[in-house]
């Protein structure tokens, strides 16, 4: 039996203040491993920080369930679209969020309760050389970390990452759109 693939695309201008993550606590809970349940503690503080004119609500929100948090990113500049094609996997693209050196959006594919792939759907770093080197080198680590969450082989990766706040924010948003818990 084949289930439909649902592709969600949303582009969001989440002009998150570059350094807001330094000072504002927030939390995200990634999808859980098969056969487990996750602690979903209620956010105690909003991440909405930085210049008052910007939005940075991904990853936070009043709802105790993490499944709805990423989806709360506003404003949406491109309407979300849904495409149905044959297959068993579902792919969602998360909100484009600012990170330290640019804007990125994460696309995630889930199959049942497993994350099967994580990629960078879009990346705009303004052509900054330093930023490019960071993006190209650290984003794969983040992809690997996301995949590692589904791996029984290793339980962690040593090696720092710089873009992780934005990456996780967009990833959570993508998972939320897929109602992946």
């Amino acid at each position, binding site marked *: 039996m084949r289930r439909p693939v649902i592709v969600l695309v949303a582009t969001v201008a989440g002009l998150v203040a570059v350094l807001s993550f330094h000072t504002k*606590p927030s939390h995200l809970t990634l999808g859980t491993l098969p056969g487990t349940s996750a602690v979903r*503690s209620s956010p105690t503080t909003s991440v909405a920080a930085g210049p008052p004119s910007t939005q940075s609500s991904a990853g936070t929100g009043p709802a105790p369930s993490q499944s709805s948090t990423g989806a709360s990113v506003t404003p949406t500049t491109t309407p979300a679209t849904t495409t149905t094609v044959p297959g068993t996997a579902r792919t969602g693209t998360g909100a484009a969020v600012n990170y330290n050196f640019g804007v990125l959006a994460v696309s995630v594919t889930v199959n049942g309760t497993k994350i099967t792939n994580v990629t960078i759907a879009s990346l705009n770093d303004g052509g900054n050389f330093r930023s490019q080197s960071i993006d190209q080198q650290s984003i794969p680590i983040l992809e690997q970390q996301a995949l590692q969450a589904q791996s029984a082989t290793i339980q962690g990766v040593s090696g720092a990452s710089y873009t*992780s706040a934005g990456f996780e924010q967009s990833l959570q948003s993508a998972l939320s759109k897929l109602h992946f818990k």
Partner: protein
Amino acid sequence: MTRASRLPLVPTQQTHAVHHLEHVMGTVVTIDVYTDADVSAAAVAPQLQRARTTLHEADDVFSTWKENSPMSKLRRREITIAQAPPELAEVLELCAIARDLSGGWFDPWAMPGGLDPTGYVKGWAAQRALAALVSPGISGAIVNAAGDIASFGGPDGTTSFRFGIVDPASPGRLARIVELTGALATSGTYERGEHLIDPHTGAASARVASATVSGPDLGLADALATAVAVAEDGLHLVEALEAYEALTISFDGTEHWTAGFPFAGPADGAPARYEPLEIP
């Protein structure tokens, strides 16, 4: 223990109850809690909350980005150490120890812009957060502060974890896999550009592409990893310390390690060269 026994063959044997991401200290910290089979995720929520609080409290005290943090005030000489929260004196004392053990190659007092223990605080805070997770019913836990890992116990009834070390030449791959319980820290130039500072010159510097240090405490392991990445002979510094081990990966890919570095290997214990793990 054979490697096969480590892996959960049946999903119901999974004891990984919590995978939590926390935005704190300017980065993402992941907290993984492995519970006994009869302990639910909800049952360890108080421990998780305590660990999260520990991280944010450390950020509040030590952040150099927060203008009114005690650390910022100390840097501006608006307060003395005696007037600051006691953790500040504790961390500076530990930094002094790490500086001495590293032969001066790790030195928060020699940072551009003055005293900056940020490089120590992340590991220290993660180690403290881990301590908040020690509890009946929790068989293992990991606090991973953006690649610097504190852990105890192991998954699925084992007593050690397997962690990948990023290949600095191709950070989408893993260069090595280690098996340990405790701390694992990696410093390198491939992530943050020029963030490694030679305390003797104040200039950006690195002699290897990445340096990884394992040991019981993440604060010291992180400091030593920073030192090994810039020191003239960093591996000997670590070799002389009981319970701490190090691995360096050069810009040309050459690897060197201390005698007891905890490579994950086959059952006979011989280190194995793992093929780089490609992202699917």
